[in-house]
């Protein structure tokens, strides 16, 4: 059985999921299967969007890849190593409320660097660099409660970038923002992504957001979450959201999702009856 020890894929792959499944509270009355049989490979520097109806387990997959939760079945690999616990190589950005309110912006960005035990000078340098990259150097001494929602998420991005991660995991990071801010944040994120050379896994239920950002869009089914289909996005960057090609893609994704939303609704109705 020697062959099993060698991963059946390239160790260059940023993320490899093999038959990944997750069941919450197994063996209890509240048990529910969130994910089943997920197979997904993410290349270095690739931007992958996980798209699906609410509660389809796409965020769960992100937590599994981050190493914050254990898989129930299947295997997770990142750059040739088994994912068993969190690693600074894989930074996660949450929907909201993830800045430490008692630290300044600079303190927040430097948090992971301090954990890693970096010398003060190196910490300052990398903090400054990360803040510069998200355009918030002047806000370095402010506290999170003094910032707008969009600025706060930029700080969260800077905090992740300061760790120089190879994979950025983003769990609906712009969901709490208004439409205009969200559009700005998307183009900002694309700039950051290109400069950082990290792979991005981005969870959203917004079709527009997926079309604006993704190299590939992974469409999820409703519970248990499975991969319904993977849609490659061939649109040239920078993207025109109003181009006919983008419109066609949006229609296609809408149709794919509608089935799932219908199914989820039917399921809820059945539960209520």
């Amino acid at each position, binding site marked *: 059985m020697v062959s099993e020890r060698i991963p059946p894929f390239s160790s260059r792959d940023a993320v490899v999921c093999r038959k990944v499944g997750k069941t919450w509270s197994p063996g209890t009355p509240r048990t529910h299967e969130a994910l089943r049989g997920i197979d997904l490979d993410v290349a270095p520097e690739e931007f992958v969007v996980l798209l699906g109806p609410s509660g389809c387990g796409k965020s769960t997959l992100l937590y599994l890849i981050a190493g914050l939760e254990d898989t129930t079945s299947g295997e997770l690999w990142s750059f040739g190593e088994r994912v068993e616990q969190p690693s600074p190589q894989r930074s996660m950005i949450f929907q909201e409320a993830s800045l430490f*309110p008692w630290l300044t912006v600079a303190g927040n960005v430097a948090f992971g660097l301090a*954990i890693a035990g970096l010398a003060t000078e190196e910490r300052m340098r990398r903090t400054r660099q990360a803040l510069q990259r998200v355009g918030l150097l002047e806000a370095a001494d402010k506290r999170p409660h003094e910032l707008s929602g969009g600025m706060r998420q930029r700080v969260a991005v800077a905090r992740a970038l300061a760790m120089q991660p190879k994979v950025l995991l983003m769990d609906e990071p712009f969901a709490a923002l208004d439409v205009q801010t969200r559009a700005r944040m998307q183009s900002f994120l694309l700039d950051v992504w290109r400069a950082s050379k990290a792979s991005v896994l981005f969870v959203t239920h917004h079709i527009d957001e997926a079309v604006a950002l993704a190299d590939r869009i992974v469409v999820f089914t409703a519970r248990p979450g499975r991969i319904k289909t993977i849609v490659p996005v061939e649109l040239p960057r920078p993207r025109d959201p109003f181009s006919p090609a983008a419109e066609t893609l949006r229609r296609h994704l809408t149709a794919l999702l509608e089935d799932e939303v219908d199914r989820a609704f039917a399921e809820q109705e059945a539960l209520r009856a």
Partner: protein
Amino acid sequence: MRFAAEPKAAPPRMRWLAAFARGLPTLLWGVASIGCFAGVWEILWAVGWADAKLLPPPHVFLGSIADQAKFFNTVSRWQIGAGQGGDVPTPAMAVVLTILATTGRVLAGLLIASVLAVSIGIGIRYFRLFGKLSLPTITLLAPVSPIAWLPVAIFLFGIGNGPAIFMVVIALLFHMVLATVNQIDNVNRNLINVARTMGASKRQTYARVIIPAILPQLFVVLRFNLFAAWMVVLVAEATGVGYGLGQVVMLARNTFNPSLVFFTIFLIGVLGFFFDFAMRQVQRKLLYWVPHGAEVLRGL
């Protein structure tokens, strides 16, 4: 780490003035509130509904301060260090000494209880075995009235400062432990997950995330428990644990002196009020990131 220049601060005297101007409305409302309360009492006395012998109005029990002060001069006064060699402190000095004795017990009890409670609360969640072994017992002891501990206090410490401080500690400890555990359980999971993805160890997560995150609510718990501490210390002092404001209330009861009762109540109220005020100031300074005030209620 500092990146931008500090904003220019106003000269100290201007800042004091500005702070005073900002605090003025609060102060005036405080005066108005107490004024209303005292006014109603005085009116009830004037129309003859409140018997001055049983419910002496403020001008009576405050007017006889000099008279009342001598009752603070109980036999054991010099035991706390005033007037060595048999000479007795003046009545005013006796009031101050009594207040200091009681305040000291409250502070000591509060300090010991907070340090113990927070350490035990964190220990319960940090060391799982310790938590499993101790949490049920603490939950069992939490609802016991501090009065029930009074005999234990006297068995263990006799009379003096010991039993009074023990009473304050025992009255606060279990509640504060449970509050600490509850706060730890309610820390925003995202904050903990951020620390974990950054590679923080358990110790680092507790030191850098969980403890700062629970501080604001713990401070509120401490403020509420301050009042509880004042109540318990009086019970402890009244029930034969040496001297202090509680002893004076007991003396007033035994000698049927309502003026002395109300004068002592007045002293305790003022002390409690200033303690709470001081704690709020500390809270503001220490927990600068917590927004304060009930602004949102104004819209209702």
